[in-house]
């Protein structure tokens, strides 16, 4: 079975999902990511889903679970590039991925991970509320 390749850039991992993933492929990615996070010092994981024109509840859950697992392994996941039609559909489906960090594109995602890592000297809650006024 083909597996989705994971790119390492220093302490960041980059994954670009380019195919309509079948369930097993998504789960394999989840496994591979966890292994990769543990294999070397990894602070952040960027998952680019800009090529996905459909994200159903299974993929949504894989994204949520991966984010949670990475967090336990002390790495921050950012999911980038969700398409408007996909976002609208997920919301209608009732899936809002409340604990997953999202960014507009790879550039913004990388910015976030860099800034986020910088602030990790003191332990802080990564899941928080929006910055108050």
């Amino acid at each position, binding site marked *: 079975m083909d597996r989705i390749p994971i790119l390492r850039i220093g302490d960041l991992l980059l994954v670009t999902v380019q195919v309509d993933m079948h369930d097993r492929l998504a789960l394999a990615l989840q496994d591979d990511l966890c292994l990769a996070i543990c294999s070397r010092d990894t602070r952040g994981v960027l998952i680019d889903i800009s090529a996905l024109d459909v994200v159903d509840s299974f993929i949504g859950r894989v994204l949520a679970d991966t984010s949670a697992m990475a967090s336990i392994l002390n790495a921050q996941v950012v999911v980038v590039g969700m398409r*408007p039609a*996909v976002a609208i559909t997920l919301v209608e489906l009732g899936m809002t991925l409340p604990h997953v960090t999202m960014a507009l594109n790879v550039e*913004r995602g990388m910015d976030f991970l860099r800034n986020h890592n*910088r602030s990790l000297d003191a332990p802080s809650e990564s899941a928080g509320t929006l910055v108050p006024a």
Partner: protein
Amino acid sequence: MAPRAPARTPQLTAQLSSAVPTSRLASTLASHHNQILEDWTREQVSTRRDLNDSLTELDLREHCAEFLQLLRTAAESDNFANIGAPEWAPVLALLGRLSRDRGLRGSSPSATASFVLSIKRPLFARLGTDFGSNAGALLETVWTTTDLLDRLGLYTTEVFQAAREEVIARQHDEMLELSTPVVRLWDGILALPMIGTLDSSRTQVVMEALLTKIVETESDVAIIDITGVPVVDTLVAQHLLKTVTAARLMGADCIISGMRPQIAQTIVHLGIDLGSLTTRATLKDAFKLALSRRGTDLGTFAPAAGQG
């Protein structure tokens, strides 16, 4: 050796074709083509001014000639009953094209249908000339022909109607777009001033427009200003919330400005956690907030707890 067929006289030809009524129409169309075309075109030109039609005489003449040609070919089949049959496809295609064109141009339905119906007078005059001696045959041909032309006329009005509805739908969408422009306030900051009453279809169109703009402009903040919206009912509030959630899934934050006490009440009664929704009383305050967020290193993308 096959027996020789009797020599054909014009009278005999007429009698033979009376055995197949439909080809009487075809033969009349063939023998009086130019006359019918002349009379028919003239008839339409004279009524054109009454019916407010914008076609030129040259166009009209072309359309008439084309129709007569196709009508003649189709009439040679023995099938008048079903204009859905393949023999009639070219005729319907032409009528469809002409009606659609008139529908899009703003012609009236009468003008469009009368294109077909006005052929009756010149055509029946010629049928009378050809078959006047045989009252029964003439009556039958006139009846089947008028029935055919009526159905073709009705077909044109159906196509016309569909074309008009297309125009209306398109204009409706354009109006929706115009009434909810998405504005770039700053690098990465969009504003969507909503004005007037919001219905379900409008909010959906608006939602899609905003999300598309977010991607196009790579904005991370969208300010949805509802100052100009008099009533926010539960349906609208739900749509707004869906928009905010969808934007967040794309990595952009929304601020709702123009928040008023009544709207806050609606949202609370909906059971929505107000803490997860960022709001400000005015667009100005929302803009200030958006600017300050862009200046900070942290927190711009912090996931909102308890959403959904």
